[in-house]
């Protein structure tokens, strides 16, 4: 078996075996990531000319869901890696240095992390305090990165910074920093309720004598609007869908076991299962229709950067993150104490704690506030099938 689905299943099986230990110890899912590398899943999106497989976001989303059913943290690491790779693929094709970087990511299966969050700015992607300081052909960058997910384990980090020390906080660039070009001093620990294996510690990041060509040529504003917003919301949603699917499957197995013990009766929990299944289908519909709209845009920057598209993606994130929590809680209510306990085949504690991060990572209120601004100008929402 060497279809993409089979490769993902094999990596997911490894991730599932270690998921409880990753969660309990709050450690990086190293076995799962090693399996992703062995199955060559980290270079999937890289175009064929650079040695990758040219996979689209829909295929990556499917893998996020498969991995999300096994280990939320491993799936989120995979998603975050591919969100960064999508920025490289969308905006780095014309840059010789970044073309070579893509070859290395595909060839050596390098893991890419992201540094956007910064002390004094928080999670506001589109503002930075730190700035690129240029001397000759090189630059230096120092950043108080209050969160860098798997920063200590990544082979390279894509970091946002102001273009110049005099630039406005929103005039940002995205720079690629290889692990051997930076020093990371840990300034905060990631000791959380769930998603413990993403190891999203805080760091003081210092880089010196980095060649200027490692700065992506496009302004970060464009990168954020044209690739990051879409890939983040679509891939995160797919991870949460995977977590919700795992919980629904546990609840279904529980109800069916109950039904087998009492032939001729429909267990009372089956009604609750019907409700959860209903929500799960609606969640899937929301994600699939957003993925279709993204694919139908064929990378057209004007479509993907339009107000209507941005509203659609914002709505997807808010809807899906809330539904994922509701579904896992609904599944727990069906399974009852067997789900509350940590030592049964129906345990749902870990997925519940993991999925509670969904409405918080880029807080839903912040996203709704952004949508509220966009709705001040968006016009009619179009037809059933076209918008």
């Amino acid at each position, binding site marked *: 078996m060497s279809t993409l689905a089979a490769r993902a299943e094999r990596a997911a099986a490894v991730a599932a075996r270690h998921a409880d230990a990753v969660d309990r110890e709050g450690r990086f899912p190293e076995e799962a990531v090693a399996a992703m590398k062995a199955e060559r899943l980290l270079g999937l999106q890289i175009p064929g000319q650079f040695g990758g497989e040219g996979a689209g976001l829909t295929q990556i989303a499917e893998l996020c869901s498969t991995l999300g059913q096994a280990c939320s943290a491993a799936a989120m690491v995979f998603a975050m890696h591919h969100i960064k790779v999508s920025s490289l693929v969308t905006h780095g094709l014309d840059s010789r240095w970044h073309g070579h970087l893509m070859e290395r990511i595909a060839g050596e299966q390098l893991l890419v992390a992201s540094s956007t969050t910064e002390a004094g700015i928080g999670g506001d992607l*589109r503002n930075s305090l730190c700035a690129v300081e240029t001397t000759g052909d090189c630059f230096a960058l120092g950043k108080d990165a209050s969160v860098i997910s798997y920063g200590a384990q990544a082979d390279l980090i894509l970091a946002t910074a102001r273009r110049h020390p005099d*630039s*406005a906080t*929103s*005039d940002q660039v995205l720079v690629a920093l290889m692990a051997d070009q930076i020093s990371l001093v840990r300034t905060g620990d990631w000791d959380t309720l769930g998603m413990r294996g993403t190891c999203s510690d805080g760091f003081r990041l210092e880089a010196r004598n980095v060649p200027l060509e490692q700065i992506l040529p496009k*302004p970060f*504003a*464009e990168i954020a*609007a044209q690739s990051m917003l879409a890939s983040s919301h679509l891939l995160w949603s797919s991870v949460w869908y995977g977590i919700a699917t795992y919980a629904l499957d546990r609840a279904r197995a529980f109800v069916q076991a109950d039904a087998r013990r009492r032939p001729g009766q429909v267990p009372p929990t089956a009604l609750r299962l019907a409700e959860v299944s209903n929500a799960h289908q609606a969640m899937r519909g929301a994600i699939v229709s957003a993925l279709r709209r993204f694919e139908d845009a064929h990378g057209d*920057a*004007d*479509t993907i*950067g*339009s*107000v*209507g598209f*941005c509203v659609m993606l914002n709505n997807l994130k808010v809807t899906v993150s809330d539904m994922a929590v509701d579904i896992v809680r609904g599944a727990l209510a069906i399974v009852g104490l067997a789900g509350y306990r940590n030592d049964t085949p129906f345990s749902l504690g870990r997925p519940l704690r993991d999925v509670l991060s969904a409405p918080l990572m880029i807080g839903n209120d912040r996203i709704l506030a*952004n949508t509220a*601004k*966009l709705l*001040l*100008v*968006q*016009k*009619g929402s*179009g037809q059933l099938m076209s918008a």
Partner: protein
Amino acid sequence: MNIAQDIREILGSNEAFSGKADRLSEDDSLFDLGLDSFGSVQLMLALEERFNIEFPDELLNRKSFSTIRAIREAVSTLIQQEAA
């Protein structure tokens, strides 16, 4: 009606361009100079109010608001459509 001057005046009320809207060239990238998504929404609202027009959804993208020239062309087209 001097559309370009009106656009500059509206831009000047944006924090990123305060005091320097008159010095912008027609083709300076407004986004590179610090126009953010909220700023562009405010800009659209002000333009709609000033020129009594409505930007249709297909013009609500970064390109339409990327430079003074792009804004002027979009506004001129919409004014002509309203008049027709």
